[in-house]
């Protein structure tokens, strides 16, 4: 498909004898919001790492805007517009919210040579218009000067997405952005993501489908290293294979929880 901005063709990744990702073809279209779900070990995180360059596939190629990026380093992929967040939040704990944003913003808009880093003041960039807008959009207005280590998990996730968005990526890859969050925090993150719809391609890897249903335009279900369904949420949920593999797990877990 030529409209895919990033695309994996026949990629396989093995860890020893275990095949984490098994000859998968997956493409993400421009400005599409898409989700991948699957149980633990389904291979969704590995596929994610292949797309972002954290590991190299044993077979297959990855294309980004028509170019082969299979062997391109993660940093170079970031520079070309593929940005990811991490499941364990990784904003800088010892800096304030606004300084974290300044670092993300500065990188995206200037060549960060050491000299440029030295001659530019933090303070001036803190007041940059785009930083102000981001603070507002992501609900950091009252706590811009708070150190990140004093933020809650939901705020940290939002900050991380904010940092990723500030670098104006073409593809935004989110690794379980909702994991471990309380309901109210989930709402905050989803609100932010909804506002980003149509501005870039977004791929969200999640464990559970429930929160993604009204956010993503397209859903992909993985099971044991393969894609077993791909389509709208409704299509996926009514798919026989998905019901067998994915829902069964949930149903079984539900029964276990009820039984004692």
């Amino acid at each position, binding site marked *: 498909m030529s409209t895919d901005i990033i695309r994996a063709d026949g990629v396989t990744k093995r860890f020893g004898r275990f095949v984490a990702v098994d000859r998968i073809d997956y493409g993400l279209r421009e400005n599409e919001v898409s989700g991948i779900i699957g149980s633990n070990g389904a291979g969704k995180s590995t596929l994610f790492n292949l797309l972002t360059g954290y590991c190299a596939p044993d077979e297959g190629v990855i294309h980004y805007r028509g170019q082969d990026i299979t062997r391109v380093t993660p*940093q170079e992929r970031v520079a070309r517009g593929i940005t990811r967040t991490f499941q364990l939040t*990784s904003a800088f704990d*010892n*800096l304030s919210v606004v300084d974290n944003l300044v670092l993300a913003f500065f*990188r995206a808009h200037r060549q960060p040579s*050491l000299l440029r*880093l030295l001659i530019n*003041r*933090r303070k001036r960039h803190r007041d940059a218009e785009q930083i102000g807008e981001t603070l507002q959009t992501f609900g950091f207005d009252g706590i811009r000067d708070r150190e990140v280590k004093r933020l809650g998990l939901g705020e940290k996730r939002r900050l991380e997405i904010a940092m990723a968005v500030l670098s104006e990526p073409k593809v935004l890859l989110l690794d379980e952005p909702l994991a471990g969050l309380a309901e109210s925090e989930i709402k905050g993150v989803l609100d932010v993501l909804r506002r980003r719809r149509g501005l870039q391609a977004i791929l969200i890897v999640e464990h559970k489908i429930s929160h993604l249903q009204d956010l993503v335009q397209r859903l992909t279900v993985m099971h044991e290293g393969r894609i077993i369904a791909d389509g709208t949420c409704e299509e996926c949920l009514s798919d026989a294979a998905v019901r067998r593999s994915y829902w069964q797990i949930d149903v079984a877990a539900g029964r276990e929880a009820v039984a004692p």
Partner: protein
Amino acid sequence: MNAFRWWRGLVSAFGLLYLLRLLLPLPFANEVIIFSIYTIGCNFLLGHVGLISFGQPAYLAVGAYATASYLYYFGTNPYVGILMGVAGGLAASLFVGPFFVRLRGDYFALVNLALAVIVFYLTQNVLVAITHGDNGLLIVDRLSRTPVLDLSRPNQFFIFALLIAFAVWAFYKYLDDSIYGACCLAAKINENKLRFLGYDDRGIRLLAFVIANTTTALAGAMYAVYLGFVSPEITSPARAADPLVVTILGGVGTLYGPIVGAVVYTGMMDLASKFMSNWELIIGIVLVFVMLAGEKGIWGTLEPRLKRALLSPAAGSRPIKGASR
């Protein structure tokens, strides 16, 4: 916070240091200033970049020997001598830096200690023809008189040292306020993320290493001119932890921690060594208490209180200011 504008902080800190000179003996004041410059590099590496080094005496010695060698063999102008020391420190840290900054944590700490040991034996044994081994290089009667500030006279040296220290502190304050300062703090906590954001984390660490150790060499160069003598003693591995001790005592990563630490450390050395032979024991005990009191060090604990006291109009700031000495 506006009341604590950075230049006001700087001016008042150095005003206090100048007063110190009126209250206390001149050699003490001079040693304190040189010691604080010696420490600020270590403080920056540890507090802002997260690099702990047990080998700072190596760079101190490079600065001191470069200065002393120039003054012993080539010229007599102490200012040129100090510039030679700084150039020596810059060259040395540029030479070893690219290899050292690849290392992390314990390895970085120990490779610097190894360098200090190497420098110690180079100056004591291997390069005896140049360094005169344990006899050292005596340059005190070779310093030429210089106009404006004559560095061969301790009271004028003090003014010079104070000006240099002021410039050094203004520079580190500037670093801290730049985007580069934020990058250093970020590299301290998560260098992978920093690299992933698209920054050159190794370049950032290398620059910090070079800046810090060139500052340390500057302290060595000033020490050589001040004492008029340099011997391998300066890089003795037994003294390797000195700047770390002062850093922790003053407060890791705080701007004025090195000054407070140097005042307290030098003061304790002077006082305790007058009354007992095992003065290091006292320092050890004090250090344990400072660490147990919350790892913030003396200035790290006092600074927030001082700010609060100065910002709230009702509170008198005198007693706290007195305690910060």
